[in-house]
């Protein structure tokens, strides 16, 4: 008995795959492109403000000093206060207040506001497609669910999956299909994990509501407490929290854990309590939460590191989705898979366009969107660094202009060539502007790495542009229909 689906099932699956791909392909392209780049968000944030002093060692007394400074301005306090401690991937302590995120200097003084609008633009494109947050996040998560459908239908549609496992006919008419299929098949486990965890972020609220209505008599907080552990019930007087004592107690409570954030829940109220989030080596969980009373006495831990499997899984989704564990090597692997998924999204639509056997406005418009998106992202980085100006409108106006230009040019190779060269030039200009603006800070540490990566990306775009310009010269008129 063959395990392969029947020819008829494969044909139907291919039809469904094409339809679902067309429905979400463009959105998936933006989500995957921005997501692949957002893997390096910690580095981009440091690159945007390279002049902020960095440090890894801190004293608990100085963190408490920063907390007391914030406490002296009650108008700056929200419902909770979050202090992020310096870590190797982000060696800067920060404090989230009402007016934004402030850096904390090594001596405990509260410093300037964190300002990384390009990183925010990039991550907002990935999380919300720059739409209103609640709607955008649901839409992006739905794309994650549909991606699961695309993966399943893609497998059923691909009858030659074993025969073609290593086929990559780059010089034939099968080029686009081979690239699409090989990247899809070999990266499937990664894409499935990304799709499921991505869908979770935006649909958690909807799921919480249904679970509360069906299993908890409409009590949504009961669902949250079941999954994320219930908050300790305290009756204090809203006294200042003994941050220093808490941090000093951590090595004894969890010797192998590294604290990286402190949250003061219900700050300045009788119910206030403290969470110390600590990372555990060789674990995918974002953090284990150690909870303390305001006077510094240890209460308990939430159980994300050794509690029920469900609780461990749910607190691992963030790390698994963004690839922020185990350092740079994992980030590069995620970048590779993220870009592969971007290529899959784009090539899927290209396959559909090629199958149509005729050209209309969709062909050049899609080509404009495809190559306009990297140009828009690079241009936003450039204007932010060179002129300290950036906006969502800028990003989308560039994509719109690229689409209009592409329709006017109406030649795929020419469109690709022009936009690749332009993107390369903008990337070079961004690195030059960064060095001109930040001087020595731009050519050391992470900033140097990002600038070199920008130049490497520029060289790659230039190569793509050069290849496409060769295609224009070589091409001869071909009747498609």
């Amino acid at each position, binding site marked *: 008995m063959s395990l392969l689906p029947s020819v008829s099932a494969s044909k*139907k*699956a291919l*039809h*469904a*795959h094409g*339809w*679902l791909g067309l*429905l979400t392909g463009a959105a998936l392209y933006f989500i995957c492109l921005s997501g692949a780049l957002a893997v390096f968000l910690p580095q981009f944030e440091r690159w945007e403000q390279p002049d902020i002093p960095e440090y890894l060692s801190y004293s608990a007394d100085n963190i408490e000093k920063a907390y007391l400074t914030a406490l002296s301005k009650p108008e700056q306090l929200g419902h909770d206060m979050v202090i992020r401690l310096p870590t190797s991937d982000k060696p800067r302590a920060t404090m989230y207040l009402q007016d934004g995120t402030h850096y904390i200097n090594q001596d405990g003084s509260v410093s300037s506001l964190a300002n990384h609008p390009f990183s925010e633009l990039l991550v907002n494109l990935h999380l919300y497609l720059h739409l209103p947050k609640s709607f955008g996040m649901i839409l992006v998560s*739905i794309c*994650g*669910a*549909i*991606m*699961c*459908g*695309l*993966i*399943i*239908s893609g497998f059923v549609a691909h009858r030659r999956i074993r025969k073609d496992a290593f086929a990559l006919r780059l010089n034939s008419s099968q080029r686009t299909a081979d690239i699409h299929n090989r990247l899809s098949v070999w990266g499937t486990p990664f894409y*499935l994990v990304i*799709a*499921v965890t991505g*869908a*979770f972020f935006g*649909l*958690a609220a*909807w*799921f919480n509501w*249904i*679970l509360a209505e*069906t*299993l908890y008599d409409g009590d949504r907080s009961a*669902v949250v407490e*079941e*999954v994320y552990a219930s908050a300790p019930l305290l009756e204090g007087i809203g006294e200042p929290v003994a941050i220093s004592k808490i941090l000093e107690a951590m090595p004894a409570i969890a010797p192998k854990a590294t604290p990286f954030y402190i949250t003061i829940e219900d700050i300045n109220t009788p119910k206030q309590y403290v969470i110390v989030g600590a990372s555990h080596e060789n674990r995918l969980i974002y953090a284990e939460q150690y909870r303390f009373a305001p006077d510094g006495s240890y209460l308990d831990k939430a159980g994300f590191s050794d509690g*029920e*499997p*469900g*609780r461990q*899984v*749910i607190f691992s989704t963030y790390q698994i989705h963004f690839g922020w564990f185990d350092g740079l090597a994992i980030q590069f692997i995620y970048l590779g898979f993220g870009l592969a998924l971007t290529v899959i999204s784009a090539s899927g639509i290209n396959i559909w366009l090629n199958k149509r056997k005729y*050209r*209309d*406005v969709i*062909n050049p418009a899609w080509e404009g969107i495809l190559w306009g998106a990297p140009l828009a992202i690079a241009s936003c980085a450039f204007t932010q660094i060179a002129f300290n100006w950036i906006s969502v409108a800028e990003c989308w106006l560039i994509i719109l202009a690229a689409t209009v230009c592409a*329709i006017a040019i*109406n*030649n*795929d*190779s*020419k469109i690709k060539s022009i936009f690749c060269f332009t993107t390369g030039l903008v990337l070079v200009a961004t690195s030059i502007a960064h060095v001109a603006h930040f001087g020595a800070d731009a050519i050391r540490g992470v900033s140097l790495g990002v600038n070199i990566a920008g130049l490497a990306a520029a060289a790659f775009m230039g190569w793509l542009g050069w290849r496409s310009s060769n*295609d*224009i010269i070589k*091409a*001869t*008129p*071909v*009747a*498609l*229909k």
Partner: protein
Amino acid sequence: MLNIWSYRSDKASRSVAQEQQPLFTGFNGVVLLRNLALILFTLVVCGVAATYLSILVTLIFPWLRVNQMVFAVMLMPVLWGSLAYWVCAAERTWIAAAAITTTGAVSACILHGI
């Protein structure tokens, strides 16, 4: 076919590699309506059905409630995608759509205790 546009770009004639076709060729109203209905079904009905079905399925397992809920959350997108695939691939779309709607409705009724 409703040819609502007859615009042809002058620049299009300069294209080297592709045969020239009218840039704007119009659309078929019936096909458009069918696709809109399918979009609504895959993005809304399949999602609701997948949510209820995944919760119902996980309640069968003799696990703690936290594990059941997290498993349901992880199962739901896969189920949603599978249902969307089924309705798109089905030869008779309305049969798949009816089956998905019924399954979702029955699951919802059981969970809400109706």
